[in-house]
């Protein structure tokens, strides 16, 4: 008895629909795992509460450091969700054989990545809302009433998610196993946070370290968020004495494209010698 020979649905519409379903499933899975919620979503909140109250001193430009810290922790939260979570999670999924199982189905490969983007965007939006709500309740940030600033917020977030996620997917091939993934990826993210003007004012870094930090996306995401939440007069305190939106966009796009190229060339559905 031969089975019916229905053909597999094709095209971007089908891939998008399956990607959306995968995204919903991934979000569900994420929120049911308490450790992942605590470490990914609550960690920036804890940092905000601790650093926001401890580092209570004025910095040049007539603001308090805790105000400077809010955009930094928003950027850290975004980068953590995109880069850290994806790099670690995909390495673990590859090691466990989840990717191998998916490869053995007619799932459109693009749907896997679309699902990850749905998950990452959901978490970034949630995290941003929580961080902004807490910081405005504590009086650390004044939410802008000017819509131009919110447009900036949206495009910096989208470009940051694109760069961070594609880098995360590319980096998922670096850890040798799922077990070693957190130990490989977390230090990279931590060092970037110190180089990117999160825990202290970026211009306090020695200038050669500023140049190193400026190579990576996190510094630019933080600077973009400062342009949203700090007064325009503070732009004079930035390294170029301006918000540099053009350069910011360029650098995030370059990282996104670079991450995409590396991800396409190195992504593997299987671990091991025949991958």
């Amino acid at each position, binding site marked *: *008895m*031969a*089975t*019916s*020979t*229905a*053909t*597999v*649905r*094709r095209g971007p519409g089908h891939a998008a629909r*399956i990607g959306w*379903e*995968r995204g919903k*499933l991934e979000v*569900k*899975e994420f929120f*049911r*795992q308490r450790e992942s919620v605590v470490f990914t979503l609550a960690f920036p909140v804890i940092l905000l509460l601790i650093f926001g109250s401890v580092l209570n001193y004025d910095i040049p430009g007539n603001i308090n450091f805790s105000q400077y810290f809010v955009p930094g922790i928003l950027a850290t939260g975004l980068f953590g969700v995109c880069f850290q979570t994806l790099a670690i999670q995909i390495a673990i999924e590859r090691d*466990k*054989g*989840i990717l*191998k*199982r998916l*490869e*053995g*189905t*007619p*799932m*459109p490969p693009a749907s896997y990545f679309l699902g990850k983007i749905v998950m990452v965007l959901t978490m970034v939006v949630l995290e941003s809302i929580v961080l902004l709500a807490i910081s405005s309740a504590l009086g650390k940030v004044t939410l802008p009433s000017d819509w131009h600033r919110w447009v900036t917020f949206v495009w910096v977030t989208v470009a940051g998610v694109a760069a961070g996620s594609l880098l995360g997917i590319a980096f998922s091939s670096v850890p040798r196993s799922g077990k070693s993934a957190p130990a490989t990826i977390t230090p990279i993210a931590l060092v970037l946070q110190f180089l990117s003007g999160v825990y202290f004012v970026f211009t306090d870094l020695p200038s050669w370290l500023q140049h190193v930090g400026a190579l990576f996306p996190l510094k630019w995401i933080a600077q973009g968020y400062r342009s949203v939440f700090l007064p325009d007069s503070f732009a004079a305190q930035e390294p170029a004495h301006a918000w540099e939106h053009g350069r910011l966009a360029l650098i995030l796009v370059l990282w996104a494209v670079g991450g995409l190229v590396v991800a396409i060339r190195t992504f593997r559905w*299987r671990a091991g*010698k*025949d991958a």
Partner: protein
Amino acid sequence: MTEDVAIRVRGLQKTYGDHVAIQGLDLEVARGECFALLGPNGAGKTTTVEILEGYRPRTGGEVSVLGVDPKRPTRDWRAKVGIVLQSTGEFEALTVREVVNHFALYYPAPRDPAEVIEAVGLTEKATARAGTLSGGQRRRLDVALGVVGRPELLFLDEPTTGFDPEARQEFWELIHRLSAEGTTILLTTHYLYEAEALANRVGVIHGGRMVEVATPATLGGRATAATVVSWDGPDGRQTVSTDTPTSQVSKLAAEFGGEVPGLTVTRPTLEDIYLTMINAGKGEQ
């Protein structure tokens, strides 16, 4: 020509550097057949199956699976092939129903997920998270994901490892049902009685070669193998290997004038045959 052949393998070769994993393996599985691959660990079973599943590249030989070379798997082909891999332990935070429903979305003509869950005996666990399932139940979830797409060909890699006898019996019934519906099945197993219970034919792989292909009843000349007759004689335990066990027993009955003390008449089990074949193979290497 290939209409009634599901899997055709000619001279399959696979090497890793200097190590030859598969050397010139031939295999043919008919549509609707249930074929079991037997062999010790490291014999090349999983390597062979993963080449057929489109997971691993091969070094040489011709392979056709449902008329397609698995070197270049297409999505249409993937939809016709169900795969149950060895590894488990995924989707821990999702329920059985959520996972099966989701995988059904990938296929053009899936089975009803609720029926699949029922068929693998997980209805009572449908709303339980996969992380809370026992080893045997997880394996059944794996099988559910392998069959939800209504595959024409199903690969089962050591499907019942870690099952208790009852779970294994239920699993065998499931395989019998799939087989009765016309699904072609290629399974690998360590358990010879499993091959005997499920397979129309068995192939023994050893040292990267197909040592023999036969029905379970005739493997290794089992049907015609000498029968061993043993009894307790006046000088202790006596054993005779014979092709005519009935006349041997009649002769003994006449000698003893009735009951033969400690009489046993045994034909070699599949296990005996298999171990003999594997040990002979070791001698060659």
